[in-house]
């Protein structure tokens, strides 16, 4: 076959169209389904036949969870100094979900080992540090009381449950064995500490549960305390929470609710929520994506990307924890927080690193998440805007829709034709609307992205595009609008968007995507969310006190 570098090879096009019927919008959804649209309405209370519970298994600590847990166990001076395996495979899969499936690579195993050795060496660096940490004076006597106490107490804290008799025997027995290296009991205690931190019982959270008479698996009190602590504080359970677990206080929904309500006031709760939100909205690569060189972007500073992410974090913290307001205000609120980096980009007065609250004026094009520099920059890979990427981002992350991948031979935006004269992005993307094969998906993605065309790749505002009028009109779910403010208002009212918020909290809490069988549960949670006036705290408490939080279908 002659090689033809120009023009779409006919065979490739035919192959693409033979595989998928690209002629209708419905064909664009993976499996032909709009999420949530088709599940049987089955009451979540009929436990004997309900198959919508999540699966149970092990969840590896994320890097943030590992760091927080280590510092909680050893002290705030002891931050890990290694680069663990990546937490996520990306896409619309949360770190919290990847934690249920990812394997530990050779590199990751090595890093866990180096980190455990490094942390233990630092915690035992001087006699004073070591004595303070162990809390008593150990000896090499096989029945030493100090060693026994240490194994029981540190074991409980590190593994988030009491050590079993087998484990107790193994760990106390290891001390004389480790001491054989240099005859020093403190060397052995240091190695024992490293072993606790390198054990799978520390690195993986157990959510295995135990079989119940109905054929499900039910999480025990310590597993519940752990699930609660990592969801709400992104760290290991406090000593008080472990004591509650031991006392049986967490074994009822009321007990869990009570503990969770207290934890929402924990100073670590906002950071835990923002960590989740950053993952959900794909804001974590901003620091490396947004230029730091002013030659590439006029408002670039070394901290700009981090500042962008922080703005969204502050908005969310204010909304969820300070105001406990309607979470959908995130899309439409007219106040935010800026520091010097952002004030310059937004054209506001202000300088320095500290964030201050600001209110957008009545006639401002900005307000809410969609016009934040973080949201606008999140998918940018260069100075040119991509309405398709921005649109897909909204479709996936705000509407929770799953689109089929592009067909083979699908094109990319062409580089600017120097002789064609200026064109708006809407004109450049004409083919996305006029060619049926493209239109099936692009009519779902591009309109919202095109509405954001008043904002350049890194969030700066422009009234026109190369002097041309920007048509910011669009349509979502059959409702027409002009501009981002109207779009945001429609979005906050869409049941699909409200459900999408619930879906993300579900995935974060339970570490997996909801199955089709879980749709009635999602629907019921969304109803409770609406009844609360869309309060995020209420949604978190609904999930925590639900059957699905305690009950699993089967082991993964």
């Amino acid at each position: 076959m002659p090689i033809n570098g120009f023009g779409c090879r006919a065979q490739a096009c035919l192959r693409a169209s033979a595989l998928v019927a690209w002629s209708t919008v419905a064909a664009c959804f993976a499996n032909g389904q709009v999420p949530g649209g088709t599940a049987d309405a089955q009451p979540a209370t009929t436990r004997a036949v309900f198959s919508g519970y999540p699966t149970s298994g092990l969840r590896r600590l994320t890097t943030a969870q590992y760091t927080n847990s280590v510092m909680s166990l050893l002290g705030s001076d002891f931050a890990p100094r290694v680069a663990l395996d990546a937490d996520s495979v990306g896409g619309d899969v949360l770190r919290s979900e990847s934690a249920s499936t990812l394997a530990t690579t050779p590199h990751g195993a090595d890093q866990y080992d180096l980190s455990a050795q490094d942390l233990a060496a630092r915690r035992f660096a001087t006699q004073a540090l070591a004595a303070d940490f162990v809390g008593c004076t150990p000896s090499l006597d096989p029945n030493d009381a100090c060693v026994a106490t240490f194994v029981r107490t540190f074991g409980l804290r590190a593994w988030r449950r009491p050590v079993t008799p087998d484990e107790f025997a193994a760990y106390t027995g290891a001390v004389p064995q480790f001491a054989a290296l240099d005859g020093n009991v403190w060397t052995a205690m240091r190695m024992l500490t490293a072993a606790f931190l390198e054990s799978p019982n520390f690195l993986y959270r157990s959510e295995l549960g135990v079989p119940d008479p109905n054929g499900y698996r039910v999480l025990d009190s310590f597993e519940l305390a752990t699930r609660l602590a990592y969801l709400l504080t992104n760290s290991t359970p406090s000593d008080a929470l472990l004591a509650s677990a031991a006392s049986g206080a967490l074994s009822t929904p009321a007990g869990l609710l009570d503990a969770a309500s207290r934890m929402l006031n924990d100073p670590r709760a906002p950071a835990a929520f923002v960590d989740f939100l950053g993952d959900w909205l794909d804001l974590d690569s901003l620091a490396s994506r947004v230029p730091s060189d002013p030659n590439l972007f006029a408002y670039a500073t070394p901290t700009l990307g981090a500042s962008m992410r922080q703005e969204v974090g502050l908005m969310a913290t204010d909304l969820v924890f300070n105001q406990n307001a309607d979470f959908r205000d995130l899309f439409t609120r007219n106040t935010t927080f800026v520091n010097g980096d952002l004030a310059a980009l937004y054209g506001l007065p202000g300088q320095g690193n500290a964030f201050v609250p600001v209110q957008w004026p009545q006639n401002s094009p900005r307000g809410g998440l969609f016009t934040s520099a973080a949201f606008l920059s999140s998918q940018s890979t260069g100075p040119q805007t991509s309405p398709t990427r921005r649109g897909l981002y909204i479709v996936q992350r705000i509407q929770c829709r799953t689109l089929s991948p592009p067909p083979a031979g699908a094109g990319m935006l062409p580089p600017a034709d120097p002789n064609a004269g200026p064109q708006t992005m809407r004109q450049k993307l004409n083919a996305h609307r006029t060619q049926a094969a493209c239109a099936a998906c692009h009519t779902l993605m591009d309109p919202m992205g095109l509405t954001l065309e008043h904002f350049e790749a890194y969030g700066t505002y422009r009234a026109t595009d190369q002097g041309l009028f920007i048509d910011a009109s669009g349509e979502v779910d059959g409702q027409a609008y002009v501009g981002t403010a109207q779009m945001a208002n429609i979005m906050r009212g869409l049941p699909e968007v409200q459900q999408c918020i619930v879906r993300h909290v579900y995935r974060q809490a339970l570490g997996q995507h909801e199955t089709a069988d879980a749709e009635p549960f999602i629907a019921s949670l969304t109803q409770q969310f609406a009844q609360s006036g869309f309060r995020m705290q209420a949604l978190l408490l609904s999930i925590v006190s639900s059957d699905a939080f305690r009950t699993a279908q089967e082991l993964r």
Partner: protein
Amino acid sequence: MPTTLSRRTLLRGMLGGATLSLGLPALECMLNRHGTALASGTALPVRYGTWFWGCGVCPEKWIPQTTGANWETTSELAPLDVTAGGVSVKSYINLTSGMQTKLPGRFTHYPNASSILAGNHDAAAGAYGEPGGPTLDVILARQWAGRTPVSSLQVGVAQQGDNLVKQNDTSWLGDNMPNAMEFSPAALYNTLFSNSSANLKQIAGRKSVLDFVQGDMQRLRSRVGTLDAQRLQEHAQNIRQIETGLDALAKLQCVVPNPPVDPAVQVGSREPLQEVNRLFADLLVLAMQCDITRVFALQFISVSSNVTFWQVGGTGSHHGYTHAGSDPNPQVAANARDIVDKSVTFMMGELSYMVQKLASTPEGAGNMLDNSLVFATSELSDGTTHDDNNHPSLLIGRAGGAMKYPGIHYKGVNEDNATRISLTALRAVGASLPSLGVDAAATTASIPDLLA
């Protein structure tokens, strides 16, 4: 049987902290009189590397018109037609055309890549069909585990991927199990050399703890489901690898070079691809020369990469330029094609940097390229048309004498299965496996024409 050597004698008289530019006469003092094997009778170690770049080539500027030996050098391969260390690098190259990647998928980049890198992909996972595994580097790292302190090294040069920053398409442990990929030369340096001065007592302590933790692994494994048992087994296996690696480390001495400094990287704009690539190439060659590892995978750019080749005048996504080659405006198309051509030529220059380094490092009676095989490959042939035929693969190096020398241009017939190239590479470096790949990619037959 692991080869264990003390480098103490070898390095006598050399100063610690020697720089990367010092060529070490690797293994010299241990060699037999002919310089072809270790004095103990063991053959010199053979090394393997995957060198991957995304989005293919311009076949009209890549595929030689002539087949067999003395193939004509095309413009995109010209950077590899050079002399280094007194030898012709080109004579070490076997290249293929006329082969086709076989795994199906709606969005072809990803299954194409899996066809050549693993012969296997996870069609059920993700929107695009995620890469499957194990990939070639992982297969070899597992087969050769324990022979060297580090079983394999995986590095990425460009950080801008297709959808992700630091997207890894080149090294996968298995379905849904991406391997860890290092994007920082300074961090790779730490992996390689942070332990080199470790005293034996520290190594023994590390080993005792690792060994002890296996008990917890076993106890936990008995309580979990199938997926988790598999995950824990993978983890436990990797811990065993660290233990055997530590054994090898205890017996190894190697000159530690000065640590490199990472150049600043701004993802999505002017990434310093050349600087990062060369720092990595220097470290990888040194790691293999010191026998710290025998396996690497280097991903220059990801599958469907959106990196910008500003070095050749590009101002946007490489993947974008490949598709703009079919723009209805002939001027736009020609300009895009030209940028793609220059980008591919640029990448071959960077591949050439590493290959030249291997060729100019003496080892035994020859050079390191005599004892290495670099499998340089992409996911498809022509990015503009998503052509999965004429797969562009280069097998560079003699692999200890297993590969045809001087190299040939082998043209497959009847759209033959490209996974056969991968199997050929694995067997050439001594891997034993009856077959590679699944479904249409499955093959039991390597390509005899490429072997000596």
